[in-house]
């Protein structure tokens, strides 16, 4: 018998690893990615490929140059790249995609110490930077479907307008008549960032993540519910409030960005508080701000508050004596 291995207990583990979790998140984003290509054509595919490739490559090179342990294998760079891509509109140039990915991986993540150490979500930070630098990123580009979508009938708006549904919605309940119907919002054949428009695809991803126990269902739901309740209280119109939560980047942000482990509080109560805060900020920005869209900025702001929320919402240890 050869030499026996010695290690501290426990000697078994759950089989869950960082790599598995990141892979699950990637899988959950696949429906949205497919829909983005269907709705926005091959340009969307190029955006996704560019973002993912440059994110992975910059992670690899950063670790190499900084002489750090290689962490490309944990797939977190793929998540960042893909998430950033889904948040961009087809107005973006491919070199801008590279710029955003490199900024996300090197500056936001790498400089702060790599995976697990970043203060804000890399994809969101990059998106906001791009929003401020290249305004074209935010403006919703009109859809350019891969194939004729007319078989969907009423689910597709007749005029493929460049403006995002939010710009109609934010003008008030009266102007909302020009916005797509709820069914159209679910299918997502309207202007916007490539991954945010198809709510059905995002909800499929959400169900997958919950089923795989990567996230708790009530975390994204609390974000979306907060926005919904705010609009309902403000206008008393259920259809309008529903349109608000289906339009824009709310679903994408709530499901994939507000549930990022690293940049949200570690406790589930803390995460709910985080999401309620982000929901309130989103509502405030959409309602009173200059930008039509506030999700990413709201999440970015809440990211900075994460340590404090985590502290306030700390679970009490059973029998703990202070």
């Amino acid at each position, binding site marked *: *018998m050869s030499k*026996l*291995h010695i290690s501290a207990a426990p000697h078994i*583990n759950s089989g869950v690893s960082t790599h*598995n979790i990141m892979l699950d998140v990637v899988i959950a984003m696949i429906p949205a990615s497919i829909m983005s290509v269907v709705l926005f054509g091959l340009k969307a595919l190029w955006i996704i490929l560019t973002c993912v490739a440059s994110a992975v490559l910059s992670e690899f090179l950063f670790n190499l140059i900084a002489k750090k342990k290689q962490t490309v294998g*944990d797939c977190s760079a793929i998540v960042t790249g893909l998430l950033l891509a889904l948040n961009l509109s087809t107005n973006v140039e491919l070199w801008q995609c590279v710029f955003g990915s490199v900024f996300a991986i090197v500056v936001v993540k790498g400089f702060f110490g790599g995976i697990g150490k970043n203060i804000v979500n890399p994809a969101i930070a990059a998106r906001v930077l791009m929003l401020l630098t290249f305004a074209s990123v935010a403006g919703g580009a009109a859809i350019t479907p891969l194939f004729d979508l007319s078989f969907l009938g009423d689910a597709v708006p007749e005029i493929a307008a460049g403006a995002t549904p939010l710009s109609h919605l934010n003008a008030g309940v009266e102007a909302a008549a020009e916005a797509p119907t709820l069914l159209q919002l679910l299918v997502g054949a309207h202007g916007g960032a490539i991954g945010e428009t198809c709510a059905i695809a995002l909800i499929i991803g959400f169900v997958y993540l919950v089923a795989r126990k990567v996230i708790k269902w009530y975390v994204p739901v609390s974000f979306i519910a907060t926005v919904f309740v705010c609009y309902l209280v403000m206008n008393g119109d259920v259809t309008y409030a529903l349109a608000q939560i289906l339009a824009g980047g709310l679903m994408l942000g709530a499901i994939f960005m507000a549930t990022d*482990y690293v940049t949200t509080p570690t406790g589930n109560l803390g995460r709910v508080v985080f999401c309620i805060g982000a929901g309130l900020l989103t509502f405030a920005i959409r309602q009173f701000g200059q930008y039509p869209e506030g999700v990413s900025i709201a999440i970015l702001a809440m990211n900075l508050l994460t340590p404090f929320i985590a502290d306030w919402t700390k679970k009490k240890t059973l029998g703990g004596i202070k």
Partner: protein
Amino acid sequence: MIFKKNISSLHVPHNKHTAGCVPVKIDTPKEVILPMNMHMGGHAEPIVNVGDHVRVGQLIAREEGRFSSPVHATVSGTVVEIFTMPTADGKGTKAIRIESDGLMEKDENLKPASFTNADEFLQAVRESGVVGLGGAAFPTWAKFNEMRNEEYTVDTVLVNAAECEPYITSDHRMMIDHPELIVKGVEYLREGMIEYLKNAKFKICIEKNKPDAIEAMKEAFKNHDYVEIQELKTIYPQGAKQVMLYNATGRVAIAGKRFPYFHAIIINVSSIAKMAEYLMTGMPLVERIVTVDGPAIKTPMNLIAPIGTKISELLKITGTKGEIGKVVVGGPMNGNAICSVDDPIVKVSNAVLAFDEKSAVLPEPTECIRCGKCADKCPVGIDVCSVDFAYNQKNEDKRAKLLIDTGVRQCVDCGCCSYVCPAHRPLLAINQDAKWWLKQYAKAQQEKEGGNK
């Protein structure tokens, strides 16, 4: 309590392959090695010399220190060596090697113990060499002795039969095969400590994944109005004493306080049975049921082996498949990996698990991604992810303050945190280090204050 918060817990794969295996007595081993540290407290002191002939059940090492437990010969034969055996803490312990003559002659002086009061009862339990067989190895008499205080009355005796760790079925088999011993043990305990346990309720706590054991216990105790069979959810770590106290009585254990403070004591079901065996026959703790299982075992079995039997002997009986990468004594969540299969089984060895090369090596730890699974699954809600950060503080006062804030002193050593960690960080080990350091720090602090006065 109307609203009782559920304790966080895990569902680990049970792998109780041996639940149906009737324990088989092994052939007398050629030699046994009996370490003197098979219990918590002071190491026992050998009272035999090399060359002495000993018989089964004969006292070969006496108690030493404030609380301790005696050691008895587990085979008949000759003492061939008294040597220093290395231990994990580096201090080493004496050990007695007995070469068996294969006869298994019983010591003729053994006779059933009788008692009329608590003093005599405790003395008898002391002489039985019984310790907490669930894993803590706390001398059983010392545990009973804690009831004898002025301040707290014990109103609940928890008999721990949860056996929440995967693989192990030795307590389970004890309940199926020897319910009479458990009944006797409970009766003896109540009788012996009647001044303290007059109004106490006995609760046999069994996880629901052992319906046959629950049935057997219900049948055995049907005429005992002071005994209740408590069915507990099948979760890990149901058998951790703090968790069981909470789930069975709703009381919350506080670190640093002994159990009678919560008006309860908790004792392993096999310890109760072994104690009864001694009181009835005079045979002290010399053999036990060991579950031999694991991915590298050919036929998982329950074996009855003399304490001190080499692990290699047990593995020979069950057979192994493939290359063995790791051997663990105890459960997979809480057991110890051993260096050599020539180590003996000791009083608390309820299982021997062999892992193949593939499952022996755990993945390398990576950076924490702050997923919070560790804190989420912690039964007592320790802020596990902050312990590492707090423990690495340079300033000792700050380190102590931050560590106390995380609640790490309440850690029950269950290992749920390490089990779920996706970054495979050795969280349990860090918690244990931190806990140990905090104790040292508190001690030093006390001394400092004493000195200033």
